[in-house]
């Protein structure tokens, strides 16, 4: 992944989280301590792909406590008012907004088609496996480590 594309991912994901969820992302360039950062969390995976002149697929791995928190902020409700369906829906919408926003920058001609996102609870999350992916990026948040993996 080239540095300019990596920076665009950082910028667009940060913009979505700050604007819609009032949550700040801290990019972490050094991944060596990343496994420990993710060790105590259960995770949700949200996937979205696009195709056109350029094709690709993004997978977001959100700690459940982060997903719950952004859902609360998004809806303006308290923790007890948020259910699993809303959390998964917010995870899907997060992927949709972040990658849609990114496509607006890398594909100004609008030739790429964004697909419908999906999200689900993960039974077995492995940060170690993500570390081995060349398109893996990591953000720290107040509610755990957010992983973003790009594949083309």
């Amino acid at each position, binding site marked *: 992944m080239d540095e300019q594309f990596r920076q665009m991912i950082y910028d667009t994901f940060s913009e979505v989280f700050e604007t819609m969820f009032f949550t700040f992302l801290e990019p972490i360039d050094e991944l060596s301590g990343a496994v420990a950062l993710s060790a105590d969390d259960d995770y949700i995976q949200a996937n979205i792909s696009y195709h056109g002149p350029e094709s690709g697929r993004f997978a977001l791995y959100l700690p459940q406590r982060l997903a719950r928190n952004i859902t609360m902020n998004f809806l303006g409700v308290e923790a007890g008012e948020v259910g699993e369906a809303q959390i998964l829906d917010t995870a899907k919408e997060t992927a949709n907004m972040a990658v849609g926003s990114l496509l607006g920058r890398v594909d100004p001609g*609008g030739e790429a088609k964004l697909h419908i996102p999906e999200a689900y609870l993960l039974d077995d999350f492995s940060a170690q496996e993500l570390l081995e992916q060349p398109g893996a990026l990591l953000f720290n948040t107040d509610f755990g480590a957010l992983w973003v993996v790009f594949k083309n």
Partner: protein
Amino acid sequence: MAFNILVADDSATMRVVIKKTVEMAGVPVGEFFEAAHGKEAMEILERNWIDVVLSDINMPVMGGMELLSEVKKNDDFRHIPVVFITTESSEARMEEARQQGAAGYIKKPFQPETIKTILYDVLEKAFQHKIEAPPQPAADADDDDGMDF
């Protein structure tokens, strides 16, 4: 005058957020209607009086561009302004929407003030009169994430 507003988005959470944002903007709302895709939106349009449609583009079953096309070719609905609220933010997609008759375009992620500004402009153009909103604290509109046509 209160407006009946139809929100079409496959995300139920986003529909709630848009509804809350419109309410916070002080737009006089008669009734809110919700659709998960364009086909459902067309069914609601057939059965109800709708003043404005706020629609996503990327939806299953029937997407927003097809919904716009269906609205504009129907003599009963073609007067209804359709505003896109979408992640599809390329200049080409915005131009395509404008040419097909969209009344406005709001990019996700959006600032609540952007929805307010564009919705008021669209409604005032469509209904040819000034809409009075309750006084609100001053805020700067961010015109970068949307436009009315």
